[in-house]
């Protein structure tokens, strides 16, 4: 019961944060709203039993990536002297239409399940977590079944790092 209440609270926090991000005029405000959303999501991950991902969400996403965004905002000096960049009129309508349609489609997709979802709070995953621990449960498939993808991801990150340096440097 308490988990469900908590879920609602964090879901509301995530949605509000998301709306705040989209609607805030100040980029820094947007960014902080997004961090709020991420924290809400991290909490929902915990409620869904994904402890490790929850930690990653907070540490990598909210911590590292968002700090990178914030850093760029500060670097480009966008924190003040910003001007309204929200599109109005037709674009607002179109944006609402687009997001509404997407939301509707996704909602219908959720509401027309093609597989049996466990309705209760229990899941076979929870037992696994109990046995192997939150990290072990994800580490086993990651380094066994997805080891190639994992290594490729490391190369991707390397390439991205080099690319970022090349792009951002004034003279190579």
């Amino acid at each position, binding site marked *: 019961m308490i988990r469900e209440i908590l879920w609602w609270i964090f879901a509301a926090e995530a949605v509000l944060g998301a709306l705040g991000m989209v609607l805030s005029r100040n980029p820094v405000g947007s960014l902080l709203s997004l961090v709020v959303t991420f924290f809400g999501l991290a909490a929902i991950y915990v409620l869904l039993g994904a402890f490790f991902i929850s930690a990653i969400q907070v540490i990598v996403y909210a911590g590292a990536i968002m700090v990178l965004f914030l850093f760029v905002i500060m670097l480009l000096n966008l924190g003040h002297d910003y001007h309204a960049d929200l599109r109005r009129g037709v674009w607002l309508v179109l944006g609402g239409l687009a997001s509404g349609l997407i939301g509707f489609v996704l909602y219908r997709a959720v509401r027309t399940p093609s597989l049996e979802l466990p309705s209760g709070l229990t899941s076979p995953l929870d037992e696994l977590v109990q046995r192997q621990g939150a990290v072990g449960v994800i580490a086993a498939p990651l380094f066994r079944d997805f080891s190639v993808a994992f290594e490729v991801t490391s190369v*991707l990150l390397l390439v991205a790092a080099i690319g970022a340096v090349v792009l951002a440097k004034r003279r190579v």
Partner: protein
Amino acid sequence: MLTLSLVLAAILFAIGVLGVVIRRNAIILFMCVELMLNAANLAFIALSRAVGIEGQVFVFFVISVAAAEAAVGLAIIISIFRHIETVDIKNFNLLRW
């Protein structure tokens, strides 16, 4: 709660779409993309409870790719900013007729 999480993912994704369509600040556009990625992540995690642990592994990869994307994307924004002194995409209109 599972189904509700999926619905929440749909709502967040829709909000991300809304942001992408109506905002003009390049960095905020990026953040909206991140939000959509997170909505997908949420769906993955919710479904991993029913289908298996692989959903969480996918989220792991998504986060890595998001990090890479953020690094490169922000670098691009910086280099664009050096040229035109703004991140408002209404000025990024070289890709026009």
